[in-house]
């Protein structure tokens, strides 16, 4: 089967033909996109920082944020970053079992994080913090909501790759398919690395 896939791939050698830089075009593209996303999250984070004290009406950060839950979320994302890098390692080695195992764990982490965010949001709404309750709430939900959307999209993306991997469609030569998804996934993780202290800890510790 591997031979067939390789043969199939070589027939498509033009896909990977000459590139000016020693980097796959799709990988370069995802990095370009990540660079662009920096500005997206920078704008959202700025908005949050400017409005985090605007909660004259309704609950503020100290009323709703809890350290344990969000620490768990942070840990889940960090571990998923580790898992996906192990999966990529497996894909590059052609180790199908390693690839499937770690990729499954990654997808589970993604699902867990999204689930936890849904729980968190529901919990906040129960505490009286709706989307429009105050500007702190609006900017919090917008920032973390868009981050959560990114996690959800990443989970779907990795899910389809898991399906591909299961069908043996990610041989070492196509590991770049997983690599670009992994880069996106790590970026979503580093955004959370910023959000965790800036949004949660700093809003609490004042």
């Amino acid at each position, binding site marked *: 089967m591997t031979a*067939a896939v390789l*043969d*199939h791939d070589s*027939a*498509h*050698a*033009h*896909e990977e*033909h*000459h*590139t*000016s*830089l020693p*980097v796959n*075009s799709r990988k*370069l*593209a995802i990095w*370009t*996109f990540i*660079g*662009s*996303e*920096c*500005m*997206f999250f*920078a*704008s*959202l984070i700025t*908005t949050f920082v*400017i*409005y985090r004290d*605007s909660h*004259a*009406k309704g609950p503020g950060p100290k009323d709703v944020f809890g350290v344990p839950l969000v620490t768990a979320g942070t840990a889940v994302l960090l571990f998923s970053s580790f898992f996906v890098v192990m999966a990529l390692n497996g894909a590059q080695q052609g180790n199908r079992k390693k690839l499937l195992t770690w990729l499954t764990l990654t997808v589970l982490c993604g699902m867990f994080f999204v689930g936890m965010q849904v729980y968190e949001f529901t919990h906040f709404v129960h505490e009286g913090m709706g*989307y*429009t309750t*105050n*500007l702190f709430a*609006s*900017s919090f939900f*917008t920032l973390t909501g*868009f981050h959560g959307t990114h996690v959800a999209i990443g989970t*779907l993306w990795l899910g*389809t790759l898991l399906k591909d991997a299961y069908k043996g469609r990610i041989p070492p030569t196509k590991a770049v398919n997983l690599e670009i998804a992994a880069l996106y996934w790590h970026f979503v993780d580093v955004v959370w690395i910023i959000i965790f202290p800036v949004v949660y800890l700093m809003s609490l510790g004042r």
Partner: protein
Amino acid sequence: MATTILEPAHAAAYAKRSVLVEWLTTVDHKKVGILYGASAFVFFLIGGLEAEIIRLQLMKPDNHLVSPEFYNQLFTMHGTSMIFLAVMPISAMFFNFFVPLLIGARDVAFPRLNAMSLWVFILGGLFINFSFLLGAAPNGGWFGYAPLSSRQFSTGVNMDFWMLGLQILGIASLAAGVNFFTTILNMRAPGMTLMRMPMFAWSVLVTQVLVLLSFPVITVALILLTADRTFGSSFFSYTTAGGDPMLWQHLFWVFGHPEVYILILPAFGIVSEILPVFSRKPLFGYSAMVFSMAFIAFLGFGVWSHHMFATGMGPLADSFFSLATMLIAIPTGVKIFNWIGTIWGGSLQFKTPLYFALGFIAMFIIGGLSGVMHAVQPADLQQTDTYFVVAHFHYVLFGGSIFSLTAGAYYWWPKMFGKMLDEGLGKLHFWLMLIGFNLTFFPMHLSGLLGMPRRIYTYPAGLGLDGLNMASTIGALILAAGFLVFIYNVIRAWRSDAQAPADPWGGATLEWSIPSPPQEWNFAVEPVVAEKDVLWAMKRAAGVRTLPEPARVSGKGIHLPSPSWWPLLTASGILAFMVGILVKGPVTHGFPFGLVSVAGVLLTALSIFKWSYEPVDHPTTHTPH
């Protein structure tokens, strides 16, 4: 190496499809480019018509040609159209058609993504303009300042069209940004190092950096505005919870200032291609041109608040942004001097493209100088929001961008369509445009200094503005005549049978080495580049002034990307999503329009999914193993 012969007859397969299907599913960068150009030109004409009505309304004081409300829609749509639906996509036409040709590539890095950008742009442009049919075109200015754009002060769907339309167009720009950045960095022909690239490719590369780093900011600003208008938050309104309209202004201009360079840098690139060819002399100071362009782009992120000098940011911030803005004049000056250095000592061939390119330099100098006056914050306190500013940015965006894009159109027309535009008509177009342009916009410097604010649908007699405004209106009509000549020229060329040669101007770059118009696969044999101005080098090596006319080849077996429906369907899904939000805003009519949005998201997701599993090759060449 990409000429590996695999399967025959993809050309036959292409021929089987109807013309409509062919254009709807095309992923050929040249067809995409032509579609960009054609649709953008239609939007340009609409925007121009809006401008003409504006000028007729302002022809005399206290005029009642249009209502205040309609006037506000006109100037909002004029600004929005010219920036997002005309200058940017006409530039995109040149990116699409010529970047791969200039760098010696068969296509862009992501042909289907490219097609998606196109369809998102066209649907977005139609979406915004559709508002006219409802009599509810955007009316809050192209800058959409909050809180005027908040639901409290703008109850209709007008600004919903604007905010969602811009969001759609932003998606197109970002996708194109990723695509062209990757294309230029990674698809260059062997030997085409970055410092051998044609200047236009450089300008596109730098422009895409600006797009990629500035559009996310307006995306966020528009998301927050959507949250305010549609979902009831108060990011930019002040009444409920202390939102700050200044945040809108900052986010808008963090995007808005780089946007100005997004409009002008490709123009720099086009002129830098044309001047050497018609001076028969290489571009003066190539590396200085590259570095000054990069420096302009970099500084472009640090000057946004000069659009907000009148808001009272305090002397420290004002001084900082004043000085940073002045700094930009240095690399800009270097570019102008280098252009003059290019023609200096040359042998100028006075063809229409050169006329427009020289017109560009002459007009851009004026726009640049008035720009320095705006950088002087105290002077700007008098000039901002007056017709002086209107004059300034039209000298930069019309005298600059449009002159240059027109130069590019005359220069590259034979390559794009295989037909020569008439020289006599072209020169008539130039003189009408130069005279009309200056008669329209030069008096605006004076009307601004004499106290005429911007965005006013009428002005009283007795301010001494009557004559100046009449002059501007007459100028605008002459400008319109210029473009009518252009359209006539195009129709004439269209009907003529004369075929343009491959290299009518004695070009320096790769696109002139292939037949006009290029065949689908661009280069039958991938070119190899050993130095700058590669075609001139080839001619020098061959000891000729013009290379022999290249033969049109059958192209049998050359591998091309397959056409695809998914880009168009992805774009449709995005449009449906925005329509759902639009209708959810002020009215629901009992229909759950949220579902339209959900359907849009699902369509987009499905299309992207199908697209990523679609074979990249042309179906007929894709045989099972």
